[in-house]
């Protein structure tokens, strides 16, 4: 009688795991990169003195932070075709992570900017620098150091959140786990390996974040 269920995991499954791992990493890095770019502008707007900039940015951040990522994924996935954009699933996934990361990163950017003391601003202004120059040469370099530990924390969170993209059938690590479970029915082994792979990705990053935070505190 032909076997419809595989008895154990084999080499082909290992390759599938690695594919899923690579897809997850690609999804997260591109999502975080694009999200950070957006967050720079939104964060600057949120930290601005002008209410017409600060308030819409605040609204954007609050709505995204107070809604589930799963709903954001569905919205982006179904909104894109309505806008006439027939995009591959990867792009929909990246767009969701990008939007989500931009809101959380914007708060980190805002906190970083506001952590730079007023005296730095006054000194730079006293030297005759305009707003863009102050930002570019004085405030942002100092804010950047403050942003790194929470930024790494956000990357860790994003790697875990990318597991939701499996819902739209993108072949990332969790989806690979679902497919292999359907094929072999070995849930403990399959999801154990999936969890271990996520752990191998996230745990070194969390140690890195702790290390960077300690280094920055001592450096001052």
């Amino acid at each position, binding site marked *: 009688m032909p076997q419809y269920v595989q008895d154990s995991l084999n080499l082909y499954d290992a390759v599938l795991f690695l594919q899923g791992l690579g897809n997850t990493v690609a999804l997260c890095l591109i999502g975080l990169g694009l999200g950070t770019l957006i967050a720079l502008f939104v964060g600057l707007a949120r930290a601005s003195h002008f209410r017409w900039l600060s308030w819409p940015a605040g609204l954007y951040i609050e709505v995204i932070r107070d*809604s589930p990522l799963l709903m954001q994924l569905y919205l982006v996935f179904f909104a894109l075709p*309505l806008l006439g954009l027939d995009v591959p699933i990867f792009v929909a996934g990246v767009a969701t992570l990008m939007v989500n990361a931009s809101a959380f990163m914007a708060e980190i950017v805002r906190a970083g900017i506001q952590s730079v003391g007023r005296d730095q601003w006054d000194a730079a202004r006293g030297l005759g620098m305009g707003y863009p120059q102050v930002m570019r040469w004085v405030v942002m370099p100092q804010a950047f150091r403050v942003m790194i530990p929470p930024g790494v924390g956000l990357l860790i969170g994003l790697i875990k959140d990318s597991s939701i993209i499996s819902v739209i059938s993108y072949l990332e690590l969790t989806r690979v786990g*679902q497919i292999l479970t359907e094929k072999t029915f070995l849930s403990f082994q399959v999801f154990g390996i999936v969890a271990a792979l996520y752990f191998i990705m996230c745990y070194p990053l969390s140690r890195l974040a702790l290390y960077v935070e300690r280094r920055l505190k001592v450096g001052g």
Partner: protein
Amino acid sequence: MHGYVFQFRPIFQELPLLLSGALVTIHISILTLFFSFIVGTIGALCRLSRFRWLNVAAKWYVEFIRNTPLLVQLFFIYFGFSQINIEVPNYLAGLIGLVVNNGAYLTEIVRAGIEAIHKGQFEAGLSLGLSFPQLMRYVVFPQAFRVIYPPLCNQFIGIILWSSLVSTIAVEDLALRGKELASTTFRCFETYAVVTLVYVVMTLTISGVLKVLGRRFFSRPA
């Protein structure tokens, strides 16, 4: 948009259906908060224990849960139980998954609260002859809870939002009702926009109420 007309009427006609899902979401969130607070307290006490093996075990529990996704944990519990032929109802599997996940985060929160208390309080309590449970109940917890309250509220909001993942293991919460409604009306974007709005309103309302309660009963520590 090629002549697509947004029609929200079919969604608002089915609002009671969505609200019944919202009720399940709140129900599972409150239960999760309650049980994960218990798990978190036990975990925090383990982390602060003088027995090395309790300390290490709790540490690894927290590290493992915090570095793996909730969805994978839910699948592990839900599909894992069926692999060893134990029938777990969806709601219970979702609840266990959420409790195990949030228990780890609450362990760290409760631990920070207990560590924030001055050592003199412990010494004074012990010198008055209080036993360890009495010490915890009358001296430590009332003071620790002031420190724990804000992150605990944040965690509760997180629980409400992340409970939407139990829809993937077929628990009839708001997210799953939204999915059902989207597939019956074919108005996917409108449905999910309304569902998202319901989540945002729930979240903002609850966080506002908790903030007011906090100011009234737990004045922030000096």
